[in-house]
């Protein structure tokens, strides 16, 4: 047994520049224990709901995180719409689906790049982000911002995408997808990458359920659960199946995300083909009452918004359970017994989004 050292991992320099801190207890290079601490930049956004008009809160919800921004806004709006008993027009639902999937692609490409960086593959990192940039451009063209869409509102969406633009975007996406396909073999088949991911950070199916893992972390361990199957937005009218891998290691979680990007391209294509004409928003009257758990699938996994209205302009309670928060306990378990160089790799496979967690 070697001497035990505690090596700090974060909050200043974790794999992705976000403030999560892990105290790694090492024996030589073996991690015997990992203790996470968060709360460095907690913003108390949940409390903001109690003093802000429920229409204004969309802007707050979108800014919970810069990467999964759209789905935060969407989840909040869906929650309020349910409390108000409002049905969103079909075109708005499709537009939400398209934007949500665009944001999933850009988030996954961002993750793939950071993941490559975690095992020291700089060129792969750069190339993933080069492809991602094209998606971000499409987002800016359609929504006005690179990552903050500002497009959702209670009752629908704030801006339309014309059918001509949608057709052109479909063509652009095909070109982007072929660029993306060039990168796939490096994640899936490259010997040096596989050596760093296969068999690293094991999480069994039973552990994943018991520890409350969500999203690709859960699906990488063989549980076919994707909240899009709940049928919000336009998902129930489109053809798709949750991506599942059974190995439960870092490689499986990578494969889940790699395949999900392809699936998102496909979902957008279907949505562009099927999108109906019509209004994009309905008028909102009244105040939210009752309580509702709005559950959506973010790029990082299931996100839960608990909304409780008391028939005033402000919500009584707005609680956000972000995917990274749920994936932290599995992370601690995965880290036990790994080697130091595997720490960044394992931390990244849950796709940590600390700004979400520090809502």
């Amino acid at each position, binding site marked *: 047994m070697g001497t035990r050292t505690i*090596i700090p991992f974060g909050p200043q320099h974790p794999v992705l520049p976000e403030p999560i801190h892990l105290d790694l207890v*090492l024996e030589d*290079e073996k991690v015997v224990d990992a203790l996470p601490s968060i709360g460095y930049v907690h913003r108390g956004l949940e409390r903001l709901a109690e003093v802000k008009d429920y229409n204004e809160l969309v802007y707050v919800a979108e800014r919970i995180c810069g990467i999964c921004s759209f789905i935060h806004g969407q989840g909040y709006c869906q929650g309020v719409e349910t409390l108000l008993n409002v049905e969103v027009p079909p075109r708005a639902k499709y537009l939400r689906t398209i934007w949500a999937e665009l944001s999933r692609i850009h988030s996954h490409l961002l993750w793939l790049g950071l993941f490559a960086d975690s*095992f020291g593959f700089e060129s792969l990192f750069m190339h993933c982000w080069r492809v991602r940039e094209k998606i971000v451009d499409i987002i800016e063209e359609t929504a006005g911002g690179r990552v903050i869409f500002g497009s959702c509102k209670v009752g629908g969406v704030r801006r339309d995408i014309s059918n001509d633009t949608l057709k052109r975007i479909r063509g652009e996406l095909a070109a982007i997808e072929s660029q993306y396909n060039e990168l796939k073999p490096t994640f899936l088949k490259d010997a040096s990458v596989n050596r760093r991911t296969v068999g690293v950070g094991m999480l069994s199916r039973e552990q994943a359920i018991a520890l409350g893992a969500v999203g690709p972390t859960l699906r990488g361990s063989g549980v076919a659960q994707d909240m899009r199957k709940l049928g919000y937005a336009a998902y129930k009218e489109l053809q798709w199946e949750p991506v599942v891998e059974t190995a439960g290691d870092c490689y499986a979680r990578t494969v889940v995300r790699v395949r999900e990007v392809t699936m998102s391209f496909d979902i957008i294509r279907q949505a562009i083909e099927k999108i109906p004409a019509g209004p994009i928003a309905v008028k909102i009257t009244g105040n939210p009452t009752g309580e509702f758990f709005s559950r959506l699938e973010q790029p990082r996994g299931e996100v839960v918004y608990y909304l409780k209205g008391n028939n005033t302009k402000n919500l009584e309670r707005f609680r956000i359970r972000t995917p990274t928060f749920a994936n932290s306990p599995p992370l601690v378990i995965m880290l036990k017994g790994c080697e*130091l*160089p595997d720490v960044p790799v394992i931390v990244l496979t849950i796709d940590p989004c600390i700004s979400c967690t520090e809502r």
Partner: protein
Amino acid sequence: MMDTKNLLEQLLWGGGYLLLAPLAGGLLAGFDRILTARMQSRKGPPVLQPFYDVFKLLEKRGTVVNGFQNFYMICFLIFVMLTGVLFFSGGDLLLTIFALTVAGVFLVLGAYSTNSPYSTIGAERELLQMMAYEPMLLIVAIGMYLVTCSFQVRDIITFSAPIVYSLPAVFIGFIFILTIKFRKSPFDLSSSHHGHQEIVKGISTEFSGPTLALFEIAHWYENILLLGFVYLFFAAFGPVVAVVSSIVAYIIEIFIDNAYARLTWRFTVRASWTVAATFGVVNILVIALLK
């Protein structure tokens, strides 16, 4: 016996190395950064950027955790320079390799002296890396001795036939360990490339300002010395071909750097010993048997 002309020539080469190696090494580093950037679809910095960086580091205030740190770093630089002088003035190849090891040991001592967990792990990894590449370096020296019947660089360099013809497998093995020596992926273990990976630059974490500048300069000296080894394999083709071959070897290293993920130390040691045992030893046995 050493006559005056010979001595003068040695002094010239040794002095020339001391003066020109940092220039060439810095330019090489600048070229490396541009080529790496282009491989990543970026434009990259100007070719003189490494010099700007070092001058900037030299201007900064030095912060040290332990007074010995600077002493060790200066020793590291001096020993790398000494090694280079030994090599370029046509000295003993074996002595060169051992002097280079001593230089490496000073670097490790410097990293250990800071007591930081990151540099301690970096230093441990550096030692493991030295373990990994040493056998192959020795095989290079032995192989050259078997071919040329001398350990003296001045004899090896004037040998009539290209050494790479006799030692092709040893050359491949040498290129393999060059990746470790150049601190490039997949073997950049002791100083991770980016500041935000698990050991935060590892061995050089606690060096800053002028001390870090010395580290960079030593690295330039070291790179030129290592390319000198490559030169030896091609010396008989004439200086132009040999220099071009060395540069091509460097480009191959940059390519490998950009095409691989970083691997772990266990794999590094296993792989480099396997390469040394197969490529190196087999090549040497063949040479020995044919003699």
